[in-house]
């Protein structure tokens, strides 16, 4: 298992609004993503789940015209502060995207590149870390003989797991996953779910999912975002069981029963 930083911080989101140009994607969202637990973020498509996730590691900086206001704290880092070292932040906050986005290079190089970027240079150390993170995601036995084959020759499920291995090799304390299983077959999905359940011991995990059953299976807490007139708002955020069994809001009730969304 990856030895993640033991100081897996909670993620506090206070009054966060995200806009693209003049159009708000989310408005005044506040929630806490506790450490050593899995928090699911659900909601209809286009309600700003991806945007919320991207604000947590300031990936929103890369999108022209995107503005984030409010307060985001991860551990004791003030994320939205200009002076925050984003590179250090992103190293601690790993992210998995909806579509696997491996570099079009060999499997080995995909894993080496980020490690080298963060200062690990010696061959032995690299090799050990590569083996360790591939073992973490259950990919080592599958790819040990083809580390120098192109990463894009892997199947979709393997590619997504390699993305996960790549993120985990940096030993993040927070892991953000944006619909990581939406393009995967049931088997790869269950491999990833099991992995997330194991990671929970050391990481703060936030996972956006379209799949309500998945949220129920793996998440301790669930947050529901819902579109409103000017940007989505947080409708409900509580522990998964009570959200699904005794929803506080009619919107939640309708959404989880499949009547809307």
């Amino acid at each position, binding site marked *: 298992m990856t030895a993640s930083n033991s100081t897996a911080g909670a993620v506090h989101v206070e009054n966060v609004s995200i806009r693209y140009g003049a159009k708000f994607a989310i408005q005044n969202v506040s929630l806490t993503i506790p450490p050593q637990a899995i928090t699911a973020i659900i909601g209809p498509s286009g309600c700003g789940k991806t945007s919320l996730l991207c604000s947590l*590691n300031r990936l929103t900086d*890369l999108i022209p015209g995107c503005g984030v206001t409010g307060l985001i704290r991860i551990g004791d880092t003030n994320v939205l502060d200009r002076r925050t070292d984003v590179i250090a932040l992103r190293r601690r906050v*790993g992210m998995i995207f909806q579509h696997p986005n491996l570099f079009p*290079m060999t499997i080995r190089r995909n894993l080496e590149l980020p490690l080298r*970027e963060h200062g690990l240079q010696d061959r032995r150390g690299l090799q050990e870390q590569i083996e360790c993170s591939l073992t973490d995601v259950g990919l080592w036995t599958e790819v040990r003989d083809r580390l120098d084959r192109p990463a*894009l*020759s892997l199947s979709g499920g393997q590619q997504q797991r390699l993305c996960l291995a790549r993120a985990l090799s940096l030993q993040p304390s927070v892991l953000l996953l944006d619909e990581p299983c939406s393009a995967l077959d049931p088997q790869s999905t269950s491999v990833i779910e099991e992995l997330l359940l194991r990671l929970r011991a050391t990481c703060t995990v936030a996972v956006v999912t379209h799949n309500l059953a998945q949220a129920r299976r793996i998440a301790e807490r669930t947050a529901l975002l819902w579109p409103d007139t000017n940007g989505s708002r947080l409708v409900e955020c509580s522990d998964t069981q009570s959200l699904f069994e005794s929803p506080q809001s009619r919107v939640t009730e309708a959404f989880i029963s499949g009547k809307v969304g």
Partner: protein
Amino acid sequence: MATSRWTGRLLDVCVWGTPVIVAGMFLWLISDLILRGSAAFQPGTESTGASYSLIAVAEQILRFLTAAPERAGRGGGIGPILVSTGMILAVCMSVVVPIGLGTAMFLSELVSDQNRLGRLVRRSLDLLAGVPSIVFGLFGNAVFCQWLGFRYSIVAGGLTLACMVLPLLIRSAEEGFRSVPDSQRHAAAALGFSRWSTVFRVILPQSTPGIVAGLILGLGRALAETAALLFTSGYVDRMPRSFLDSGRSLSIHIYDLSMNVPGGNQNAHASALVLVVLLILINLTAHRLTYRFLHREVRYA
């Protein structure tokens, strides 16, 4: 029904016919050059008892490629001219590659599409790309030969060519950079790559096809250029002694032989043949390199 069948036929003929015409033009040009140019390589035109063995022809070709021109180019070879051409291209490329890649990176990775400076640079490049080469020649003469005091020299010629080729390289390198999807930039950023590491380790390796295409275009244009060099690198057909010496490029040699030297036609054709072969070689190596590079880094499935 009959009409549509005939339209189909017609389209068939066109679709098969046009590539044949294109290929035919190329073959015609090449065979014309070979027929007329190779006369210069025929051994023993001056000596009696000519033997047309392969070795003798090869010797003759080698002699043509290395010997100095004689009688204003009517006889002899093109040795000094090849050297001058190489030196001009070297000056040109060593300026164009760093500046071109830097500017392309700036346009595609550092500034947004709306950025004022970026737009100004792009607009200027489009304008520059359309300027006739004779104008570059005048400009190069004024700036490099006179103002900077390089006189008629290989440096002045190379720098003038650089100004001409730069827009081509920047445009295709920029296209190369832009062809890399944003998901790659996001992947790198999310892994904590700095902006420069993203550019050098992730974007650049994936944009080599565009960059190489730009280099081929640029080299080709530089190699073929006459007008811009007439007033900058000069006319002298002896072996250049340094980069500050004047030197005659291959294209100028061809121009001079066919326009100004009566009886220079045969060597003009031979030189043109060399020029075309050089262009083909550059093309092939570039493709080879891209292919090799792609299969090292970007092996899709």
